[in-house]
């Protein structure tokens, strides 16, 4: 199984990262990707920026475990997760997930699975800057529901 996991403060180059997943290979028929970005509004509040905190050590373990589960479930060639931490502003990239497979169906599904599990199982926390001061983002029930559908 291949999986590449990185937690970093600096931005990433989407093209370069996705190219690296397929470079030199002739067995990849589909490469699915997801990019998460910082929005300028959340729950009706204007967002000036945010700070992402994480649990060093456990974060990487959790992401590797999620990728391993995806590899066990689908026939994948390679997976990639890059997640940023620290201070970000609207428009900044937060997360990149890339999944290479022989066929598109598996790549699409595994990409969504990895994001759904990341949102509910990887130890990251967002603190938003709003006009009335900073506030911690509350976990959403809809994220739990999205992750639940992969069970059974």
């Amino acid at each position: 199984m291949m999986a590449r996991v990185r937690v970093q403060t600096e931005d990433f180059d989407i093209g370069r990262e996705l190219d690296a997943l397929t470079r030199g290979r002739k067995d990849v028929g589909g490469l699915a990707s997801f990019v998460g970005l910082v929005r300028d509004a959340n729950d009706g509040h204007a967002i000036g920026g945010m700070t992402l905190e994480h649990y060093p050590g456990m974060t990487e373990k959790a992401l590797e475990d999620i990728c391993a589960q995806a590899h066990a479930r689908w026939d994948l060639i390679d997976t990639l997760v890059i997640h940023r931490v620290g201070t970000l502003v609207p428009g900044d990239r937060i997360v990149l997930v890339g999944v290479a497979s022989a066929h598109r169906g598996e790549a699409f599904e595994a990409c969504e699975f990895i994001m759904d599990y990341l949102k509910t199982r990887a130890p990251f926390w967002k603190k938003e800057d709003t006009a009335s001061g900073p506030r911690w983002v509350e976990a959403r029930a809809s994220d739990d529901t999205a992750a639940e559908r992969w069970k059974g």
Partner: protein
Amino acid sequence: MVTLLYFASLRENLGCSREQLALPSGNATVSSLIDVLRNREGPWTQAFAPGKTWRVAVNQNMADLATPVKAGDEVAFFPPVTGG
């Protein structure tokens, strides 16, 4: 001794990110650690009051109240995650 870690809003509310704690006697679990923390004053009682939502990891694996804790373990408490 065990190492306790606190993250995000829990860390801020408690004013503590890391501490060493003597293991409660007997077969210690996450639950017995919670009993110790809840008996502290102010924000500690509040943060770990029954019905409060928090998550726990023992040695960087998700755990629950019944998870055993032994000397040298790393136990982390934090709110539900919000990454991605």
